[in-house]
Each structure stands twice: as structure tokens, then as C-alpha cells.
């Protein structure tokens, strides 16, 4: 997909950096190419969106084409956590812990209305976190209730674009 075809280009501009020396940018390009094409998600789903995530991994939509079918059950080995479903107050510390257990670099996709903003449970509800970004930093938001698998694939492509903007210097800074 060409860059112009993506709908959310304006925000991406703010992430973009200028300059950098030639050697570093080449290494960056190689590493970012590797990272963006090999995003292994954690098997983590809380509710309905998890079913659509499974559907995205299944034959019809086939996550594997992007090289991200390697669902890892252990957070140590995964790069991406797709928060698919509602996060409630009791689950929030667990989610934070899972995120902390993942090794750098790690990415988060908030999938579905509940993870983006609390969705159907925003009002009148006593036990729901209103948006998973209150707990862990989110890279890409995918609205929908639940988003169809294509929407998830689109979100993953957005994430790949974002990963491609990273430089080694950035990651080092984050690790500090």
C-alpha cells in the first residue's frame, strides 16, 4: 500500500525525524525493516475483539502474510500486544505486568472500542478502565466494535509505518 493511501498521515509527520548520518540511517533501515516485518503478537485477548483477532489469523484473512502469525504465548518473546477487548480495573495491573515482561522494543495496538476508550462501558460502569492508554502506552488505535479483520490488518500496517520511523538512538533513549 502506498503512503498516500493511508488515511492518518498528518500524525505520522509529527513522529518523523530529519537528518542522521548515512551509516546510521542504513543500519536503521535494515533493523526497522526486520522489526516491522516480524511483529510477533502475544496471545492475549479478553473478549469479543479477540475472536476477530483470531479470525484475522485464520485462513480467510491470514495474518501470516505479514509474517505475524507467530503468536507467542510467552510475553518475553512477543513484540506486540494487541489489547483486544475490555480492560477492567482488576485486569489493569495484570496487563501492566504483561507489558513490563515483554522485551524491548515492544508495541501496543488498542483494538476495539473498549480498549480505545472504554466503548460501551464508558458511562455508568464501575469496573472498566476507560481506554487502555491509561495503563500502557498505545501506538495504534483501531476503533470498531469489534473492528473487522481487515481493519486490524490496516492497523498493523499503520504500526509497521511507525516502526519504520524508529532509529537506534531512540531505542537506546527509551531503554534508559
Amino acid at each position: 500500500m502506498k503512503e498516500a493511501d493511508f488515511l492518518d498521515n498528518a500524525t505520522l509527520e509529527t513522529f518523523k525525524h530529519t537528518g542522521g548520518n548515512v551509516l546510521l540511517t542504513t543500519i536503521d533501515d535494515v533493523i526497522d525493516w526486520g522489526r516491522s516485518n516480524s511483529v510477533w503478537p502475544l496471545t492475549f485477548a479478553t473478549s469479543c475483539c479477540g475472536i476477530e483477532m483470531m479470525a484475522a489469523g485464520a485462513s480467510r484473512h491470514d495474518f501470516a502474510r505479514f509474517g505475524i502469525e507467530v503468536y507467542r504465548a510467552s510475553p518475553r518473546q512477543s513484540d506486540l500486544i494487541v489489547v483486544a477487548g475490555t480492560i477492567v480495573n482488576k485486569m489493569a495491573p495484570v496487563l501492566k505486568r504483561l507489558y513490563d515482561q515483554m522485551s524491548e522494543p515492544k508495541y501496543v495496538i488498542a483494538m476495539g472500542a473498549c480498549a480505545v476508550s472504554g466503548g460501551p462501558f464508558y458511562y455508568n460502569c464501575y469496573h472498566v478502565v476507560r481506554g487502555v492508554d491509561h495503563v500502557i502506552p498505545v501506538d495504534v488505535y483501531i476503533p470498531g466494535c469489534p473492528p473487522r479483520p481487515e481493519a486490524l490488518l490496516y492497523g498493523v500496517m499503520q504500526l509497521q509505518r511507525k516502526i519504520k520511523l524508529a532509529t537506534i538512538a531512540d531505542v537506546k533513549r527509551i531503554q534508559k
Partner: protein
Amino acid sequence: MKEVIHTPVKALEEEEYHINMGPQHPSTHGVLRLVVSLQGEIVKSLKPHCGYIHRGIEKMCEKDTYPQIIHLTDRMDYLSAHINNHGVCLLVEDALQIEVPERVKYIRTIIDELTRIQSHQLWWACFGMDLGGLTCFFYGLRDREKILDIFEESCGSRLLHSYYTPGGLMWDIHPNFQKSVKDFIKYFRKKIKDYDRLLSGNIIFMERTKNVGHLSKEDAISYGITGPSGRASGFSCDIRKHHPYGVYDKADFREILFTEGDTYHRYIARMDEMHESMKIIEQLIDNIPAGDFSAKMKAVIKLPAGEYYQRVETARGEMGIYCISDGNKTPYRIKFRSPNFSNLGVLDHLSRGFKIADLVAIGASLDFVIPDIDR
């Protein structure tokens, strides 16, 4: 002389070994947490901890009008979304004593059965995956997409539809509905044979499921295990037979009953239910009468003060809705008797003395949907 007190040497006694399955674990199908105490690999006891997806739907319903409740029942047992909604609609219709058109009843029954099939397909896919047969997952979901296409064509979305409203349907079915349903049944009758060849007849599968997790009929009733899991133990609990709603009284189908009650028969019960569901759909699909797709409803629905109870048969068992109304447009108290919550209670009883691998198989055969447990 001092008395010698013998104390048993503790050092050589085996310690209890606890492991924590979940909240993030591939085989708990969501965010259920099981604290399992083991002896070697054998499960000594098990404590389920729920609430990791407790969203307080019952409390939220007290603030919502009846049509709005539909969108919350969708999200309880998302794999039987249509059937849950059917329960709420029937509750409102019975309370207001509205006669819905025959067409609506037919359509609802057909869509309910399609929902049951897609739920069982997903269950089959996950059951295979939990036992380690990863390919099952893909075949199950491949065929499920066909039903989701039918839903999307008529209802507009794949998983959570909010298609039923009190009094009827959101809109009429798509003109292609009957044709695509018939195509699907033709397609699925072929594909379900693959399911049997791949998993049901497999020697490894049979060894792993037969005589594992036996549940007697008395226990099934006492624990309130309904749905295919209960019927595999001989507990005749099919609401479609005992308290027919929709047009189930016009369809000819068999209540799948077994007496063995082990994991294998819970599996077979669900496989047979898919055949029965297809049979029901085939009987009804050509006879959908013409007519309105909704009864006349007032803009604001108010239930007369009183108590109402409605039971429907979801893909996992008996779903009960107990509603106390004080005459307002919102219910005073609404309680969802979710089948999964009762089914969860038996997990400890079933898995004692079996291995961890069996625990996974038993859990998969009970077919949990965690958001339905926690609500």
C-alpha cells in the same frame, strides 16, 4: 522419665505445587485465572478466579432502556449474541403481550441456529487447538466465515449485530438470505466430514478425551450444567424442547442425549448439535412466511410493574433473564443467568485426579466464554 514425642519428619513430605493458569494463558480462552495445585502433573484441586472481565453489565442495564440493553447482551456471550438478544426481546414481548409476526419468528429461529453452528465451529476450532491439533483451528474458522458472511449481508456486522429489537428485527433480511443459507448448508455438510476425519476418529484424540472428566447426571443437575455439556451427561435440559420459543415447536429435531458424560461425549454432543441445527434450518428456510419484519412498538417501551423470567437455549446452555420492573422505561433489576457461570463451578469437580493436559481438554469441552461468566 520424659516421654518421647514423635513428630513426623516434614522434610520428605511433598509440598503442594501451585501453578497459576491465566489470566493470560492460551487455553483459558480469555482472562480466566485458575489456581491449580498439582502433585507432579496431577491436578489435586483447582480454584477459579474470575472477575478479570467483570464489567457490571447488570448494573448498567438498570440505567438503560430495553432496546439499549440489547447492545449489552450482545457483549456478554458474544458467540451467541443473537440468542441472548432473542431472550431480551422475548422477555419484553411477553411482558407487553405483543404478538410478533410469524416471519420474525422464523427468521429469528433460523438465525439462532446459524449462531449455534458458528459458535460450535469456533469451539471445535479451539478444542482442536487446545489439544495441539493446530490445523483444526484454521478449518473451523474457515467455515465459520461463511456464516459470518450471511450475518454481515443481513445484519451489517460480523460478530455483534444488535439485529433483534423488541417487537421484531432492525430491518428485513437481505433478499439473498435464503439462497446463501442453503448454499452454506450444502457446503458445510461436506466440510463437517473433514472434521470427523481429522479429529473425531483420531486415535490420539480419542485416547485423550475418552473417560476423562466424567460427570454424572445427578452432579450435572446439582451443578446446573446445561447445554451440550449437561446433555452429554444425560440431563435433558434443552429449552428448545421443554419451553419452546420462536418456531422450535414446528421444527422436527432431536435433543442430543448421552449418558456417559465424559469429555469425548461432550465433544460428540456438540458435533451432533451442528447436524441437528442444520436440520432445523433446512426445515424452516423455505417456509419463511411473508409479512412485516417488526410488530408495531411504542417509541418508549415501558414494562408493566412485575417480575418476568425468560429462558433461551444459547450455544452453551440455558440462558435465563430475570427482570423486575417497576413500570419505568428502565428495568429495576435485571439478572442474567449465564450458562458459563454455572458451568465454571464444575471444573474443579471434573478435573481432580487428572493431568494438566486433561484439565485443558476438560476446560475446552465445557466451552467457556469468559465475558459471559463475569458479565
